[in-house]
């Protein structure tokens, strides 16, 4: 399955899938779509990436972040030092071979954490209703409409939770199965 055509195509399709999944999530309130199907489409992006490059590569690219740090040199002022740290960790990333003067920390986003965050969002979206003295999960919408996103409200929060939950679940399954 690891053909160069497939692998190259996936590089361009992955962001497309992700954007499409967000679009599906957002239009879900009044049209076909929503968190569940959005999460499934979003996970397709990563499933194809796993098929093309293997799960280790996918984890490295999307779910593992190397953060660099080092002690403040004498000549730098604190704001300068902060700025340098920020730049090295975001747009001005260091090359991947070992950097002697930088310490690095690996932050890993496990699918279980994605699932937990999703469940937490979904369950907490209902609490807002309780806080206002209404039954659990009573919906609440903001008055203002925001372009592209549309109206903001607790059902959208719930859907976003479902999105993350489904995404995390599929990722967990795909990573586990591709290791067999």
């Amino acid at each position, binding site marked *: 399955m690891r053909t160069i055509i497939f692998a190259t195509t996936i590089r361009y399709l992955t962001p497309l899938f992700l954007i499409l999944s967000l679009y599906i999530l957002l239009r879900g309130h009044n049209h076909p779509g929503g968190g569940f199907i959005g999460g499934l489409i979003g996970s397709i992006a990563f499933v194809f990436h796993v098929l093309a490059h293997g799960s280790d590569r996918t984890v490295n690219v999307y779910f593992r972040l190397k953060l660099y740090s080092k002690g403040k040199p004498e000549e730098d002022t604190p704001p300068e030092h902060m700025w340098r740290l920020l730049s090295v960790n975001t747009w001005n990333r260091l090359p991947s071979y070992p950097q002697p003067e930088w310490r690095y920390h690996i932050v890993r986003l*496990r699918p*279980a*954490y994605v*699932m*937990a965050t999703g*469940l*937490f969002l979904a*369950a907490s979206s*209902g*609490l807002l*209703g*309780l806080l206002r*003295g*209404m*039954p*659990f*999960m*009573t*919906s609440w919408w903001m008055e203002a409409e925001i372009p592209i996103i549309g109206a903001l409200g607790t059902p959208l929060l719930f859907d976003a939770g479902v999105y993350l939950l489904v995404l995390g679940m599929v990722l967990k399954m795909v990573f586990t199965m591709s290791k067999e």
Partner: protein
Amino acid sequence: MPSDLLLVLPLLLPLYGALLCLAFWQREQWQTILAGVFQVAWLVAGVLLLRRVLHLEVVSTQIGNWPAPFGITLAADVLSALILVTAGVIGLAVYLFSLQGLDITRRRFGYYPLLLLLQMGVSGVCLTGDLFNLYVWFELLLICCFALLSLGGTKGQLEGTFKYVTINFLASGLLLTGIGTMYSLYGSLNLAELALLVRQPEHPNLPLLSMVSVFFLTGFGIKAAIFPLFFWLPASYHTPPVAISAFIAGLLTKVGIYTLIRLFTLLFISDLGFMLPLMVVLAALTMLIGVVGAAAQTDFKKILSFHIISQIGYMLMGLAIYTPLALAGSVFFIVHNILVKTNLFLISGIVAQRYRTSSLKRLGGVYLQQPMLSVLFILSALSLAGTPPSSGFWGKLMLARAGLEAGQYVLVGVSLFVSIITLFSMTKIWNEVFWKPRPVSIRKGSLVTPVNPLRLWQLYLPVTMLLGVILLIGVYARPLVRLSERAAERLLHIEPYTNTVLPKKAAN
């Protein structure tokens, strides 16, 4: 506290507990602390709900503020709150036991989140006011049980889990068919609305209702392990570690019986002339087969597993007699049995941990080594068998009296006979495990886990706590008997339930 909050707390607390445990994945110390906090909170939520229900009879909330037949309804009456509190008590006990009684690998890899999610499922089953949601909550129970029973993945566990899941899938399929048929007959899934619909004598689909009830009796019969659908239970419950099986064995079949009682008093009342005699036969056979099966076993946990089945027969007996006293007896018996059965399982776990076996042939002489444990066991065992003045006695007394009043002499005779055999079975465990000297050939060769007094007391603590509750119920039975009677009254007179859930219909 508003009722809206009180009704969702038993669902939300375990959910948030499980989520926080997930956030601390593989750090079992944090998980342990969090799980403990949420266990206590769950119990407190149950107690608060029970207090509210005692005051108001029935409370309900409409999730999302959609009015009743259209939205999702949560409703609680005395029976559901009582089961919740009991589940909270044994949840706490099993949690305390797991601190020392479960290996660290299982605790690290998801025991606490799974246990909490299982408890959320139990709350859901008890509180739901909607037939389809009932099914969903039972699925949650099934999934959590599946994961918990197979947690650790030893060969015996996987075999037992496979049997458990296969037959329970079948039960779920039957339930789903029943729910679908119910919806096509009456066009509603809300329990309160259905309860009003099935009480309309002129409804054209009324004669078809008994078909649906058979689906539910079979489906929940499998989940509650009623004769002849119990074979999965002794095949799977003895395989996992006791900290897992004690909660599942203590609670889950009783949740099935609870649902049967709820549905056959709320919905399937049109064809009782056919169903009740059938249930009488089923109850008698369940009691008999369970206890006879137990007599043939030579394993501590397997004997207890078979006794679960025979005790389920008693609970079904109350439903089959169908008088207020009988239903109250059933409710009392469910509460008593959840506590006692969990306690006996925990004791078997302590013995098995020390001597690394639960086979009666290889055990012996525990009385000399651990007199305290022996006292705890004999009191629990007598309570299970129902000798006065233990809690089991009052349950059986209520059931027997109700049976005699209703003229079910054979059923009462069977139940008393089964009590004697239960006593015999408990005596057998007492003789083999505690009283007889340890077999000489084994005494030399086998391993005994060294005793650490502090650890041992941590294991005794939950058992002692549960036994305290059991003895309290036995000696001072009146409050629980009154509660059971109130629960039974609510079951037979449903107007407060339907009026609370459907206030508009009540006004019309």
